[in-house]
């Protein structure tokens, strides 16, 4: 039974989506229940998968679709899934966040999906199917198909928001298509040269036939990287992200912001280490090593500064995501195991803290009806429970112990020092200082409120629209996810050592 876990993780939400569509618009409650059950089940299965993979005898589960063992050939003729501890961890993160986010969606979906609740739940479950598939598949082309699945679902989910959401979703369509097509091109180039699509086999062929010097392989690598970077909003290519996530329906933003970019970072690490192999990526005759580190430095600095310049909290958080992507790209390109493992650990911790912050921000915006930081007066008094969760996420973003943000910074900085990339270390420290400024600006405002006599740039009408009396805590279906998220932030921080060791052993 255990060997079927990977496919079950995918199938359960898939069926969930089908059932939800069949249920139809008349029964939003049952749609919610259904997706809750299916996602909960799938996250339980992925939890078990982690346990299975951690056991000594099964290091990696290989699951051949259609049972096509390569008998007469060396290469895989079918498609296979490959689940090691890294994949298992990310899959668990995806399914679990999906599950928790579904709890959050309970009230929001009916409010924001304009009577299309079943379609929202179906799309979000299919999105989860796509993300899990991306993480687990071991076939370069299948990866493309799944990337497109996630893209299509996210276009639709974002476009369900207001009119600005539709516009940013359109830009996302254009950028996303370019990115995915570049990836597809790269795969085509690899296929021409190697004649196979299985990731491990491609690496093998590249290694045996010494294809590394070939121009076509280098171009293929460049294009795959460009494609993946576009998808993960790496700095110069980040244009689509902030508006898309800021204007999307809140329950969509809370799910996508933590996961989409992170999964693509995972894909990048996988492409670098498994598809092309570290000998190719980190070899000295290619100039890109230094270049990408510098690009990531620019990404970190620019992302932090852009976030600092925003007054709209959701926009601010999205720009922080851009900066965090810079962290991970830089860490993965440092070229030592510490850096890679740090980047990978940051995938998990950043997912947790972004989730926490986005839920908190959505709740606040929902309650006070204004997304500008200037409107956050005295929130610590008005909605303390929410602000506690927000504070945990913020401290983790700043990188203070014992939250997970501190430890991922620790590993990344250590990797940077070992690699002697001081510019990267400085960028990390700079961004955490900027984050401190950003969040303490909010804390001060939420803690003391506005000082009399200081002119503010938002009209009193905003505050009149919803007087303080109307501001109260939100239903449990929003607070519970918030607290699950903040607890997992702390838990990841405390658990960091075993996690890091698993990751390191898997990467070696």
């Amino acid at each position, binding site marked *: 039974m255990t060997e079927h876990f990977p496919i079950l993780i995918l199938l359960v939400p898939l069926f969930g989506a089908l059932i939800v569509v069949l249920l139809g618009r008349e029964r939003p409650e049952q749609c919610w229940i259904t997706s809750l059950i299916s996602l909960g089940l799938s996250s339980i299965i992925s939890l078990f998968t982690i346990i299975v993979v951690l056991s000594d005898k099964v290091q990696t589960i290989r699951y051949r679709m259609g049972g096509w063992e390569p008998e007469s050939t060396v290469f895989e003729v079918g498609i296979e899934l490959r689940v090691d501890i890294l994949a298992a961890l990310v899959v668990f993160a995806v399914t679990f966040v999906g599950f928790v986010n579904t709890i959050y969606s309970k009230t929001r979906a009916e409010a924001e999906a304009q009577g299309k609740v079943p379609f929202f739940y179906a799309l979000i479950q299919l999105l989860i199917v796509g993300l899990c598939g991306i993480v687990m598949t071991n076939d370069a*082309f299948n990866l493309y*198909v799944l990337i*497109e699945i996630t*893209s*299509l679902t996210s*276009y*639709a989910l974002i*476009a369900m928001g207001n*009119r*600005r959401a*539709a*516009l940013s*979703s*359109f830009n996302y*369509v*254009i950028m996303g*298509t*370019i990115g995915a*097509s570049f990836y*597809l*091109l790269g795969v*085509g180039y690899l*296929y*021409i040269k190697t004649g196979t*699509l299985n990731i491990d086999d491609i690496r093998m062929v590249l290694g045996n036939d010494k294809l590394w010097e070939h121009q076509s392989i280098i171009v293929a690598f460049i294009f795959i990287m460009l494609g993946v970077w576009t998808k993960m909003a790496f700095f110069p290519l980040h244009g689509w992200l*902030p*508006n898309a996530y*800021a204007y999307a329906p809140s329950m969509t933003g809370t799910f996508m912001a933590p996961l989409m970019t992170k999964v693509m970072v995972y894909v990048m690490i996988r492409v670098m280490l498994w598809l092309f192999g570290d000998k190719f990526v980190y070899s000295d005759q290619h100039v890109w090593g230094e270049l990408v580190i510098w690009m990531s430095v620019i990404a970190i600095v620019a992302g932090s500064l852009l976030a600092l310049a*925003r*007054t*709209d909290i959701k*926009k601010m958080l999205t720009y922080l995501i851009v900066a965090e992507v810079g962290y991970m790209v830089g860490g993965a390109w440092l070229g030592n195991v510490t850096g890679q493992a740090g980047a990978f650990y940051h995938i998990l911790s950043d997912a947790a803290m972004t989730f926490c912050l986005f839920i908190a921000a959505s709740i606040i915006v929902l309650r006070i009806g204004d*997304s500008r930081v200037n409107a956050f007066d005295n929130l610590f008094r008005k909605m303390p429970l929410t602000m506690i969760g927000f504070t945990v996420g913020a401290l983790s973003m700043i990188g203070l112990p014992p939250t997970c943000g501190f430890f991922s910074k620790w590993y990344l900085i250590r990797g940077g020092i070992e690699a002697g990339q001081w510019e990267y270390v400085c960028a990390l420290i700079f961004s955490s200082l900027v984050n401190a400024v950003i969040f303490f600006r909010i804390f001060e405002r939420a803690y003391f409120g506005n000082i009399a006599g200081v002119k503010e740039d938002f009209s009193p009408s905003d505050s009149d629209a919803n007087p303080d009396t109307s501001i109260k805590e939100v239903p449990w279906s929003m607070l519970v996810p918030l607290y699950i998220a903040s607890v997992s932030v702390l838990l990841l921080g405390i658990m960091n050592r075993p996690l890091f060791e698993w990751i390191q052993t898997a990467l070696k």
Partner: protein
Amino acid sequence: MDPIIANFIEENIVPKFNYWIYVILMMIGLYAMITKNNLIKKLIGMAIFQTAIILFYVSIGVKETGGIPIISHHGPDHHQEAEVHSEESSKNLKHNIIDKDKYANPLPHVLMLTAIVVGVSTLGLALAISQRIHKSFGTLEEDEILNELRPGGHD
């Protein structure tokens, strides 16, 4: 004509014209996606872009010596039995020696079937989104939309 150019054409363009064609097509599409102001024109560019990639893939699978990848050594009259009777299978096994140069490479065709489907779906969804935009903004020109957003825009 200058011999060098002629030589270049001789060696790099004529035998590899398929790559040149797809690159040119793709660049046309990319240019339209980047620079066009009208959303529908962007989408047209997107369609060209994806078609170019499909062309590229299919051209990988071509073999000058080969035809369509459908095995046709037993005539059309066998089809039904081949599906129903299993004893046919033993008969098939004996003439199982297949010259692989007679058939084109099937894999790219399969892949491109998928890519086509994906392209269609993306296009359909994008059209729906642009209709939504047109409904709420009353125009499909990007600059007009941005102008309309200026006052209210948060960024």
